[in-house]
């Protein structure tokens, strides 16, 4: 149960126990009690902060790995379990030819990167706060996208294989 607590909360918990022990040893009890109150305050504050944390916009996050879209597809197609280990949960920055842009009924955009001759693609689901950017990129241009790699859909239904990136933002597009 303790293992799922954030680090800051663990530290305040440890300090709390330490202070409790000290409380029974020393004479300056008021001062120790004061420290305990401060410690609990910091612990609760840090816990709340961690609990309410939201994801950072990827336009302000440095990419872990930069890779061309075609190379990324190739790596997953060659050995998907090795590629999963390497790329899952990582922030990827990938550059490739924009094959297509889809917009669904709810207004969400997906950029599809890769060779037009190939069934395989990198599918980039756009961050909901950056949807407008997706509509401005011309199809056939080279585009750089940053997002979280959520995995690989191997072609089991005859629809082509896809590497999926989530919460994507467009870094730049060259015509």
């Amino acid at each position, binding site marked *: *149960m303790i293992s*799922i607590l954030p680090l800051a909360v663990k530290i305040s918990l440890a300090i709390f126990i330490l202070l409790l022990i000290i409380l029974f040893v020393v004479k300056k009890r008021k001062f120790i009690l004061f420290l305990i109150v401060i410690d609990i305050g910091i612990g609760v504050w840090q816990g709340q902060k*961690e*609990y*309410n*944390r*939201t*994801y950072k916009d990827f336009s302000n996050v440095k990419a872990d790995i930069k890779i061309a879209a075609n190379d990324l597809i190739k790596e997953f197609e060659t050995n998907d379990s090795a590629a*999963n280990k390497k790329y*899952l*949960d990582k922030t990827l920055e990938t550059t490739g030819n924009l094959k297509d842009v*889809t917009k*669904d*009924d*709810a207004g*969400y955009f*997906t950029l599809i990167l890769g060779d037009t001759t190939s069934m395989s693609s990198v*599918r980039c*689901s756009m961050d909901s706060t950056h949807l407008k950017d997706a509509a401005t990129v011309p199809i056939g241009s080279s585009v750089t996208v940053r997002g*979280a790699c*959520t*995995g*690989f*859909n191997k072609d*089991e*239904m*005859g*629809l082509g294989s*896809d590497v*999926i990136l*989530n*919460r994507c933002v467009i870094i730049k597009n060259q015509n």
Partner: protein
Amino acid sequence: MKRKGIILIAFLSLLTTQSFAQGKFYTKTGKISLFSATPMENISAVNKSIVCLLDSKTGDLQFAVLMKGFEFKKAKMEEDFNSDYVESSKFPKSEFKGQVTNNSSINYSINGTYKAEVTGKLSMHGKTKDITASGTVAVKDGKVILNSVFNIQLADFDVRVPKMYIDNIAKSIKTTVDCTLEPLK
């Protein structure tokens, strides 16, 4: 000549509706949402990159879901979901393979909303379980829209919630499927 042309067009349009009626439909941008309701808090997540394939001829229905693709409002919830509950690094993919049991009562070439029953095998978190869900199949201008709401019991898939959050997470997760399928060319 004119009449021949009209007949030809009529014949061709018949052919296209026929191919719609018998073809396969798919999407790669289907949506599945999860909803956990407890007195403590409500938690929701959505995955917008669902792959779905429907064979309108046989009623065969398949879904592929990347577990890491569920987006939560709070980062901590998403991290806990992935690392502790569904262990998405170990089990990255979830799959459903099944059938629309009343497929013969759905006319894929006529616009309309039909009630549908689906039954099949759901694989998730290393476990496979038979599930049945009801919903609707809406045919609209050559597209097929699937909607369904059903519950997944966490215990069925061996998903364990840490004691600390046992009151915050429902044992039965409301799952909503919303997929707009296009004809597969």
